[in-house]
């Protein structure tokens, strides 16, 4: 049934308001990143300003952001790959053999406050001389990514019919062969979803890197704070830094929208 015209008008107006409220602040941030600090302080220059690349020059050259971008990329990439390697077989097993209690243990990682793990981690990893290194950062980000992979992939394996695997067994594959040659190739969309979500969550993670990284290994969310001084804030630099951190992830999400949405809503409708 077609909605009534009055409702359609209301819907357009309401959704336009929603979209504006969600996007305007982000656009404002990006606009400010192209302004000089003088222009940021002048309300008359809200929209009419002469754009400058000065803030980005500051962020990328003086503030060493190229290094932090590489750090963030490396940590997120390594944590995602490692989580997929550990998580895919685990999710498969938990789905096929209905290991709900084991799954619950892994999902506890999503529930527990990170701070409660950081003190013991800090102690253990500083004894191992790992604090400040990439190893411990990747491990801590895996702690975020692995439960996501298991959660998303369990749902995905649940949806694949077991008969496909049995057909492989009849054709002489071993169980592990069937997993590798039948189930994994069929799961590529699920793996993409899990991988993308892991990457985003690792990229955005702040608390673990705040404690476990040092000046050379810090990731972008920690590096943002370089622009917040005790006395004053370099707003132009800060907005450029915030844009550098968050714009890439928004652009990626734009292109792989479908996967991001299915990952974020995974398992929600099973009841």
């Amino acid at each position, binding site marked *: 049934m077609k909605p009534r015209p009055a409702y359609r008008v209301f819907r357009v107006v309401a959704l336009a308001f929603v979209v504006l409220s969600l996007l305007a602040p982000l656009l404002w941030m990006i606009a400010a990143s192209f302004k000089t600090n003088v222009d940021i302080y002048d309300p008359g220059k809200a929209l009419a300003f002469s754009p400058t690349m000065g803030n980005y020059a500051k962020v990328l050259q003086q503030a060493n952001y190229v290094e932090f971008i590489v750090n963030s990329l490396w940590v997120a990439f390594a944590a995602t790959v490692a989580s997929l390697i*550990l998580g895919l077989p685990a999710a498969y097993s938990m789905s096929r053999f209905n*290991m709900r209690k084991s799954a619950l243990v892994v999902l506890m990682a999503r529930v527990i406050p990170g*701070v409660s*793990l950081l003190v*013991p981690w800090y102690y253990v990893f500083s004894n191992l001389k790992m604090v400040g290194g990439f190893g411990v950062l990747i491990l801590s980000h895996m702690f975020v990514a692995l439960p996501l992979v298991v959660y998303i992939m369990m749902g995905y394996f649940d949806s694949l019919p077991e008969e496909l695997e049995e057909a492989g067994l009849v054709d002489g594959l071993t169980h592990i062969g069937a997993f590798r040659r039948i189930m994994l190739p069929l799961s590529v969309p699920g793996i993409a979803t899990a991988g993308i979500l892991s990457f985003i969550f690792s990229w955005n993670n702040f608390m673990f890197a705040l404690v476990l990284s040092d000046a050379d290994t810090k990731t972008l969310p920690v590096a943002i704070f370089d622009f917040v001084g005790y006395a004053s804030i370099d707003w132009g630099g800060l907005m450029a830094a915030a844009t550098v*951190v968050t714009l890439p992830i928004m652009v990626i999400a734009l292109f792989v*929208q479908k996967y*991001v949405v299915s990952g974020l809503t995974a398992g929600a409708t099973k009841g």
Partner: protein
Amino acid sequence: MATITTTKAPPSAPDTPGWVRWVNDHRKWLFAAPAMTFVAALLVFPLAWTGYLSLTDAEGSVRAESEFVGVQNYLDVFSDTARFWPAVGRTVTFTVVALLFEVVLGMAIALLLWRPFKGQRWVRVAILMPLVATPVAVGMMWRLIFDPNIGMANQILGWVGIGPQPWLAGQHTALPTTIFIDVWQWTPMVTLILLAGLTSLSDEPQEAARIDGATTWQRFRHVTLPLLMPTLTVAILLRGIDALKTFDILYATKGRGGGSFHEVETLNVYAYGLSFDYNEYGVSSTVLILFFLIIIGAMWALTARRKEAKR
């Protein structure tokens, strides 16, 4: 324990080496073990240690000697009306108010997006943006917008004749402002989950109600909402847990200790400060254990409701 679904495997070829057969027969645990070990090592053992630390007077350095003090920390924390209880209050206020707005707004937006229309794809893209944005960057962005002197928020208020507000800088306005930021960033999450739930509903109950002459509100209240209840509970559960643990935007907007008057100091921020600003490991572990229990309690209450709703 888990039930094992036995698939009839054909007998392996006779030339299969023994170890391959062993690996295949034990694949259930071999597959699950690495991930389980990883999580257990990084979760169970540290959690147990936090539990132990909460019974000691550990402070200063993680390597320093500490003494077992029994439940003294718990008694101290329970009688701490200066930092602990206000932090509990803020945590609960933040979570309940933010969740309330996120569920109501999220539901409204999901209903608007339910039926296909031209341009829906673009609205969905817009909805996704806050959700994937880095929370710390989001905090910084709102810090500029809510700046009392140069921020856009007071500009806009000025246009409609309302005087400037202190927003994040005010002792009483800081917490509501951070709640607003949380609502801005996470309402889309609720919308996406509910939208997934809505699209999975069948049209028949709707049609039947329509034929029976039910109004739009009646159809929502008595048909859509009950059917959507399981999905709504999942959304509340996922969002609620994350809201309780909010850290990034609070730290980004107010810094250490939740501001100079601890205006936005929630349990997570308080525990972080105790651990890493004051090195009070014993007390911070106590706060964390209590915090963890609150989270588990909230989850338990919600899942109990969910099971009841299913019956």
